[in-house]
């Protein structure tokens, strides 16, 4: 009996406490039948990568509004590479200016969702990009 379920880590790196978006997305993903690991505020890149590996998630979703993304995201991608875990898809959301989006995609962040994104788009993105054996 095969019973594959997509697993997503929803994480808040940085020090800002605005978790409305992260929680709305977490709930929407759950309602779309995924397992969402939610780790709360103030997560360091080390914590996020280690959690993603232990939980063997298919996707990491990062939410940040503090403006520290250009510092924290590259660090996180570097750690993922070191741990040979770049098969985990990384997506992000929050207040991220257009020019930063270009840079972040270059370092391997697969998609960036700005404020106002429909949660269905995020769900579709995950389903399209995660290859789960059924």
């Amino acid at each position, binding site marked *: 009996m095969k019973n594959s379920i997509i697993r997503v880590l929803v994480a808040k790196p*940085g*020090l*800002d*406490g*605005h*978790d*409305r978006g992260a*929680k*709305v997305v*977490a*709930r*929407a993903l759950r309602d779309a039948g995924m397992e969402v690991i*939610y780790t*709360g*505020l*103030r997560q*360091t890149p080390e914590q996020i990568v280690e959690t993603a590996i232990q939980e063997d998630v298919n996707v990491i979703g990062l939410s940040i509004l*503090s*403006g*520290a993304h*250009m*510092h*924290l995201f590259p660090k996180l991608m570097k750690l993922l590479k070191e741990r040979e875990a770049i098969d985990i898809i990384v997506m992000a959301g929050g*207040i991220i*200016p*257009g*020019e930063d989006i270009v840079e972040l995609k270059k370092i391997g962040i697969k998609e960036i969702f*700005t*404020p*106002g994104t*429909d*949660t*269905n788009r995020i769900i579709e993105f995950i389903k399209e990009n995660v290859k789960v054996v059924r």
Partner: protein
Amino acid sequence: MAEQDRRRRMEETKKQWEEGSLKKVLNRFPERNKVFVTGSNTEVNRLYDPFDLIDFDYIDELNFPGEYPYTRGVQPTMYRGRLWTMRQYAGFGDAEESNKRYQYLLKNGQTGLSIAFDLPTQIGYDSDHSMSHGEVGKVGVAIDSLEDMETLFNNIPLDKVSTSMTINAPAAVLLAMYIAIAEKQGISSSELNGTIQNDILKEYIARGTYIFPPVPSMRLITDIFDYCSKELPKWNTISISGYHIREAGATAIQEIAFTLANGIAYVDAAAKKGLDIDTFAPRLSFFFNAHNDLFEEVAKFRAARRIWAKIMKERFDAKDPKSMMLRFHTQTAGCTLTAQQPDNNVVRVAIQALAAVLGGTQSLHTNSRDEALSLPSQKSVRIALRTQQIIAYESGVAETIDPMAGSYYLESMTKKIEQGAMDYINKIDQLGGSPKAIEKGFIQREIQNSAYQYQKDIEEKKRIVVGVNQFQSEEEPMKDLLKVNPEIEKRQTEKLNKMKKKRNEAKVQKELKLLRKTALSKQNIMPSILNCVKCYATLGEICDELRSVFGEYRESLKI
């Protein structure tokens, strides 16, 4: 008799209208929706008329401005006497840059400063802490020690300005630094004027910049109340904030219900400590959000004033009218700003600001159009300020007091919000007060449900957001977004290291030890913190000492 005749005539006419012309039109042209709701999903009737206000008692429910229950405003003349304070929240980079900005603002006639601190400062980390990387100077100014505060207020006479500081968990430390600078400027603390946000409960609920668990946090707050009632009589010791609760997704009713419930918790805590209500209650102030639904928002502000007045009088038996007056600052709703077609945000902000003014706010911050994309640029900040000025000087709404009063819709909505909020407050009382309700996750869950509902409504197009789920258009990405200089972190760390070499280390360690002792005792903690900051103990060192005594708060998941 005449009254009854008039009423009968009204009833008859209404019936005729309903069965006649209204029915005819409805049959041919059905309305756009089956049910109409406000921005907060409260049902709105087709029409409001005198029947909605049949038991309305002017004196009980509104009364004249400056009179209990203050529904129409806390002063007898309101904006005819003095306009609201246009207080734009600002601060970025290091203390030097911010100081330049403040001096510029003051030269241009601004009398109130509103200081934004960066996140490490708000969470009690120095700029060289590992958690601070990438955050230093980002969303506000970085303060590590008294030295930074000295720079921040260089050439600013503290007896001439009123300073609002958005600081919560380490509020006592920043306030102590402010007092220490005043002392250096030769100004008595009794002359200091300003506000600290100092509202920890909403940090657990919505904003997330907490440090310590609830019990020691409440002690820090009541220590500040106590200290200020003696030493800083003109200081607003707390700004009980609904703003962030609303941003987290609460409805209008939830915003004021949870904020006032927090207010009750602070008053309870202070009373338990033995403080006389009329010594500290007049220094409590509030901070609300102004959202898009114009009438609902105006009603919300009026309802909040009425509820608080009744709570203070009836529940806490306050005697001083000032204890019963709800004074508040307003900020327009950041969560309504769209990244799509950002210029549209100027219009949203204008409507929201109008609501705040029609609701009788004491001060106002208007958001900038580009804040869904980045920190606001200088140009956007100027448009935001001009928006307030146009409302003040061109719209005419400031020329008479509470101009929307008496509107059938507004008064009905005010009543509805009051009832809705009171239902919540009663529920929270049953749960044992707001700290308990937060611990149980009740308040967080209620807010998250509203936030989720709001998102679903947008996705199902039950709610239209212009430019987001309808009326989209291709657009050029916005240019001239503000960038914070990444060198600041390095500069700030260097300054910190240099300062540490200069200070009297033995004295610092001694004062920190004494602070620890006070923290473990029941004594007021303010004097010890003041001694620490004076010998240049850093914010991080002071907070670490307190962390080791009080522990750290950990959120729990309530989805």
